[in-house]
């Protein structure tokens, strides 16, 4: 199986993003970092496929080291 890079949330994409921002809304920066870390771990477990997780990590890393900084 290969990583799905198309929109997999359909019309719920905006709602999902709004939920993510809402979860962060009243957190301190440290708490926000922790939330992100936990979320990644929870979602990795939900994906449940090592191959997919490796592809996702590669996609997320892509360009990161060569970036001059924030986009």
């Amino acid at each position, binding site marked *: 199986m290969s990583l*799905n890079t198309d929109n997999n949330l359909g019309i719920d994409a905006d709602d999902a*993003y709004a939920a993510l*921002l809402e979860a*962060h*809304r009243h*957190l301190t*920066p440290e708490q926000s970092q922790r939330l992100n870390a936990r979320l990644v771990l929870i979602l990795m477990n939900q994906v449940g496929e090592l191959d997919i997780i490796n592809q996702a990590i590669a*996609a997320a890393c*892509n360009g990161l080291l060569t970036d001059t900084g924030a*986009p």
Partner: protein
Amino acid sequence: MTKQHYQPFPTQTPPELKGAPARVYPVAIIGGGPIGLAAAVDLAQHGVEVIVLDQNNTVSVGSRAICWAKRTLDIFDRLGVGERMVRKGVTWQTGRLFHAQQEVFNFDLLPDTDYKMPAFVNLQQYHVEQYLVDRAGDFPDLIDLRFNNTVTDHVTSDTGVSLQISTPEGDYSLQAEYVIACDGANSPTRKRMGLSFEGESFEERFLIADIEMEDDPFANADNAERWFWFKPPFHEGQSALLHKQPDNIYRIDLQLGADTNPEEESRHENVTPRIQQIMGDKSFQLDWVSVYRFRCARLAQFVHGRLLFAGDSAHVVSPFGARGGNGGTHDVDNLCWKLAAVIQGRAPASLLDSYEQERGHGADENIRHSARATRFMSPANDMERLFRDEILSLAADLPFARAWINSGRLSTPCSLIDMPLQTSDTSDTLADDSRCGLVAPDLPLDNGDWLLASLSRNSFTLLLVGVNQTSIIDSSNLLDALPVVTISLTEHAQRRYGRGAFLIRPDQHIAARWEGTDLNASLVRLAWDRALGLADKAHAA
């Protein structure tokens, strides 16, 4: 000023100042912007006499609302100005999204030839107002446009509203059974009543400029586009939007940031260099400049007894997504047939509560979408900014991220599915596009006309698709009052409706539907009563 000449409308001395006997008007509308004028035309089409009171005597200055969505164009077509708007307006189909120097993606709103109206037309608000004023002239006995008439006070009672009006020729008072306040985002009516207008304000300031320019900025001059930039090279760290309007006028929206001095920023000598950075050496002329702050807010109630709010006076949204002018037009569409039915004794006054329910739902949806778009452009904190920036940086390579880029979710009709006026929908064979509570989909007819244009402009219509009228209607006097449109089951009709019967409200929403031959006159009567707010009677029947 260039192309647009703000010609004063003729004014006449109100009859009240000429000693005419006092009378009660069915409806008075406060505010002669696009919403107030559209409401006047709609009510007149329903046979309701209406007075429009406007404090100015010209169309509004500056382009203001410019993007009119397909649903709104269908409404304006029902009001008799839609074709003129499309003829004059710029139909655009391509949107491009840029991040820094790079085009991240583009989308195509293909002009589907299977609908009468295009997805979007850009047209300055002042043209729309002019067309509506011209259209109002078709109803000399029903529409009385009173310019330079400023409402200074009002008193509501159980039977109507009394208005105090100031004119250059003197002051007078006027009685109306119902008043619609279409007096804009800073509604004096709302303020006079001390109603709270709650929601979310954003710190960022935005600058709008209209420029007149002979050269076209787009690659293909015959194909107007919408361009949106995040962090463009010409406007450090912010966002920008470019739209084309008729008469070689371009609209540019620039995000300015929170610590901006609006007066300073709107001075032409400060605006011009910013535009030059976008347009390079193309020669242009500044037409109109405005600086504003985003706000999303609404009244808790749109109906206050005999006083009703519609458009920006009832709800405001951030502009990206074009939900202000469009949302207000949808209010008119929803309200006027109900108000006419109440005034003409065909429906109980409680039908107006459904206006608040249905359009409150629409306002919430518009506010939700526009608040999200605003937060995407103007993140509330560092973490939001981080997510936003990483979405932008992933979007060029990974398509899923593009779905999250939010430069405004463009106005679409809101669904009234499962709301009380609609009869519950039990069909599993009819098309999803024609579920009860949705806008009836348009389609081309065999005779070259379009379906929506063939529906009644001011009453319910029974649409029969691929079924024979005589086989299902078993009562005669129902049809005396209910226009019937029969169409054949073409491929379009099959895809958008299916074989069956559809009760369509005057605002072109589907109130009830029946498969094939499930229909008899008493079912139609029941659904029709329900859609007129006579549900109790309907249940008792």
